[in-house]
């Protein structure tokens, strides 16, 4: 019986694949899961939009130049169901973000974890499959 359950679970994965983790598109082509960075900056905009939510953050580099990063996340529905509130983020908040870098070097992160101004860390994106 148990093996049946396991078989069913496995078949589910094979049938529907990693579509189960991410709603809309694969990120492997766009982001490099092996290269992670942590950035800290000021929130300039938050988009609770489909198919993916975005946080935009101004980050100052070593030379003092400000770069605006976009942080791609789960769809809003998923974020709200996994403990996020739209009240968690507002323009001007300082947050730090751990994420996977963009392969093309553009200032976009697949933002895995966001540490909010109050120190609470939440997943903006789940495990990268």
């Amino acid at each position, binding site marked *: 019986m148990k093996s049946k359950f396991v078989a069913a679970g496995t*078949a589910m994965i094979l049938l*529907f694949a*990693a*579509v189960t983790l991410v709603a809309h598109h694969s990120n492997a082509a766009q982001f490099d899961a092996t290269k992670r960075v942590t950035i800290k900056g000021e929130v300039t905009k938050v988009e609770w939009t489909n198919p993916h939510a975005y946080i935009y953050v101004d980050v100052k580099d070593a030379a003092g130049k400000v770069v605006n990063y976009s942080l791609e996340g789960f769809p809003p529905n*998923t974020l709200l*169901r996994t403990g996020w509130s739209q009240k968690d983020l507002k323009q001007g908040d300082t947050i730090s973000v751990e994420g996977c870098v963009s392969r093309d070097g553009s200032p976009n992160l697949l933002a895995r974890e966001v540490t909010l101004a109050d120190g609470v860390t939440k997943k903006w994106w789940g495990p990268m*499959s």
Partner: protein
Amino acid sequence: MFRLGSAVILMLFVSSVLFAQTPAAPIKRTADGKPDFSGIWQGGGISAQGPTANIVPAAPAAPAAAGARGGGARGGGGAGARGGGAAAQPGALPTQPPMQQWAADKSRGMKNIDDPTVHCFMPGIPRVVGMPFPLEIVQTPNKIVILYEAFRTFRVIPTDGKKVGGESAPSFNGDSVGHWEGDTLVVDVTNFNGKIWGPGNMKVTSAKYHVVERYRLDGDNLIYQVVIEDPDVLTGPFSPAPTTLRRPSETRLMEYECLENNINLNSIVQ
């Protein structure tokens, strides 16, 4: 020590006997005695309860299917990476559709950008069931309506075996006609448009794509099984093991308008 060991053995024996003789879990029924599928279900993905039980760690990618598509965040790419290298076990149900050579070759060549869902088209059947969003079933005596949060998909399925309405154009979700076989709802789905991806590695479908779905309750779980046929694409029917949909803690569906901010197409291409 001996007593403890004996006790453990006895408990194991008793529990196995009990388990073996446990009757099917009772199911909720409608006023007319049919299994009651009403409510919200989740086939895949992440709910408020965290990853559903159907999520298991990804298997290592098969070399042929890895590479640029290795992320496999959507149906198809990931399925290929996962299923392609699996060795079949004797008696095991197939894990991948048996594709004709040309279809296997074409599927292997598909890129993320070729996935209809990347462009916000509906995933079709059965891919939509595994999307990381809940679905809701509304049941009446002669039809069920399935509202899928993913890609604003809905289906109206007569359950009396009678097709509703006249001619309809080929579509992403096809035309569904259901009938009861005991406590199982069997839904015949035809009239697809050949623009969707099938399950697993199957990234090409024809207008002859045909799905037979079987829905039944097992206690508070919804057991979902499909048989896929496509004589222009497959070498024979594909009958994978059933999958289990569970009741998430969500009590409502939300909107998922994929076209709202689909801004990254250029970087998805590979």
